[in-house]
């Protein structure tokens, strides 16, 4: 493959991935409002188009045309940088996620992934840890009490849960023997007894999965860990002073992060694109992507379901849970996994 073809293919993949991700983000907001509404015996948005399906477009237009207010005592460079940083880091993470095997399109052999790198998982962890600055700087630069408290809470929470999150993944890494997300998926191929797939969730990593999913909910500041934007006490948390598109950028970053978490859960614990494939060539090529999308959407649904079901933690409960329960459990999981692999 020449360098020209490589760049062309990469640009095409980036455009498609961004388009799909942003559309997914927009419609997740609608799905969230609809599903939570039904959980709470309401109808949710139903005025814009049939079943309210044009609601995300209307919301987008509203955000664009709203007045963009910068508080007079905000520190402007960082006030502007914070949402950009949040959104950039959230969107970049999609680049290393594999959504399917290598395929041949028009004579070019290419992976269904923007960048097939051998440290994919570490890149996602790195991007997440840089994304914390978006939240921290937003609260500080707004020069407002509520923003400040919200961002202090969010930063402490994200830094704490990042450790449990990272450690929960070590078991999976020991199984796969690689940081490459593609290798991790390939290590999960095959079945037990002919019908139970050898996904990590079924091969003894279910404790790790639950640690991961709880830590990831805390990482993305979602209920039941949304202390950072607890509206009953902090108005809106770190983005209290933001309006118009700057607020929309934080909003998009939050939902894009939900997608990253869902994709990562799928890749690490649920076998990524693996699933039954059959039929003609076109179906063979499309079914893996279908399975991947299905699993990701299931995780997004669980996110929304949890939001509609659980109340919020208290802050001391949150910290105690992260440090005194999740962290030791994650370390115990590493020990047990390492012993099992070593004795095998």
């Amino acid at each position, binding site marked *: 493959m020449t360098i020209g073809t490589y760049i062309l293919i990469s640009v095409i993949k980036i455009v498609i991935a961004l388009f799909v991700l942003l559309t997914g983000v927009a419609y997740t907001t609608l799905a969230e409002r609809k599903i939570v509404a039904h959980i709470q015996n309401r109808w949710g948005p139903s005025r814009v188009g049939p079943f309210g399906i044009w609601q995300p477009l209307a919301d987008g237009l509203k955000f664009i045309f709203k007045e963009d207010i910068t508080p007079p005592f905000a520190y402007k460079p960082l006030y502007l940088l914070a949402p950009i940083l949040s959104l950039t880091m959230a969107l970049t993470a999609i680049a290393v996620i594999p959504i399917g095997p290598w395929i041949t399109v028009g004579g070019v052999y290419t992976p269904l992934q923007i960048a097939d790198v051998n440290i994919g998982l570490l890149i996602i962890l790195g991007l997440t840890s840089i994304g914390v600055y978006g939240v921290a700087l937003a609260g500080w630069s707004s020069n407002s009490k509520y923003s400040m408290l919200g961002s*202090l809470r969010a930063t402490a929470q994200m*830094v704490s849960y990042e450790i449990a999150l990272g450690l929960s993944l070590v078991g999976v890494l020991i199984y796969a023997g690689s940081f490459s997300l593609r290798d991790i998926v390939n290590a999960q191929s095959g079945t037990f007894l002919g019908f139970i797939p050898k996904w990590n969730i079924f091969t003894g990593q279910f404790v790790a999965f639950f640690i991961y999913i709880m830590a990831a909910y805390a990482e993305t500041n979602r209920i039941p860990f949304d202390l950072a934007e607890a509206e009953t006490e902090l108005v809106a948390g770190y983005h209290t002073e933001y309006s118009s598109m700057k607020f929309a950028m934080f909003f998009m970053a939050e939902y894009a992060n939900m997608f990253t978490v869902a994709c990562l859960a799928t890749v690490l614990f649920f076998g990524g694109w693996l699933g039954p494939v059959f039929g003609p060539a076109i179906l063979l090529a499309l079914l893996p992507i279908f399975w991947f999308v299905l699993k990701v959407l299931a995780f997004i649904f669980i996110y929304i379901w949890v939001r509609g079901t659980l109340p919020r933690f208290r802050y001391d409960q949150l910290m105690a849970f992260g440090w005194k329960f999740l962290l030791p459990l994650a370390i115990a999981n590493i020990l047990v996994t390492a012993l099992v692999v070593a004795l095998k």
Partner: protein
Amino acid sequence: MHLVLFIIFGAVCIGAAINLLVQKHPINSALSLIVVMGSLALLYLLLGAEFVAAIQVIVYAGAVMVLFVFVIMLLNAGEEERTPHGSRVAIMLGVPGLIVGLGIGVWVVTHYAGLDRIAIGGPEILNGTEGFGNPRSVAQLLFRDYLLPFEVTSVLILIAIMGAVVLARREE
């Protein structure tokens, strides 16, 4: 290509380091330090040590510096004040120090006939040290060749943590 990228990120690194010293507001200095960490990670990446680069971003830029920023936010540190002439000791020690440092730099560059002897150029100059920055080789260094120093360091860090706890609780 490697040389061009090296010069760009090296320049960014030095520029951010100078900015770190020049900036008056601590949060700007902290952010400059993050840029320094980030460009260092990219330099590691150019050397083919992708694992070390990722760890550099996660640990230094992502964890250590978050705590720096956190402390600055908590203390709400304002702009620092400058004395008009600066410290006399700093001038007395700093100027000769700077001259000596520059002299050593010039001597190294002239004595070793330019930059070609310094390791620039990426993975191709690292023949014989195949994959020196990947997880396997880092793990072998840490857990086999230098196991004792590694464990002793961890005990040292543990002592530091306990010391910090004791100091923080003294008021009771």
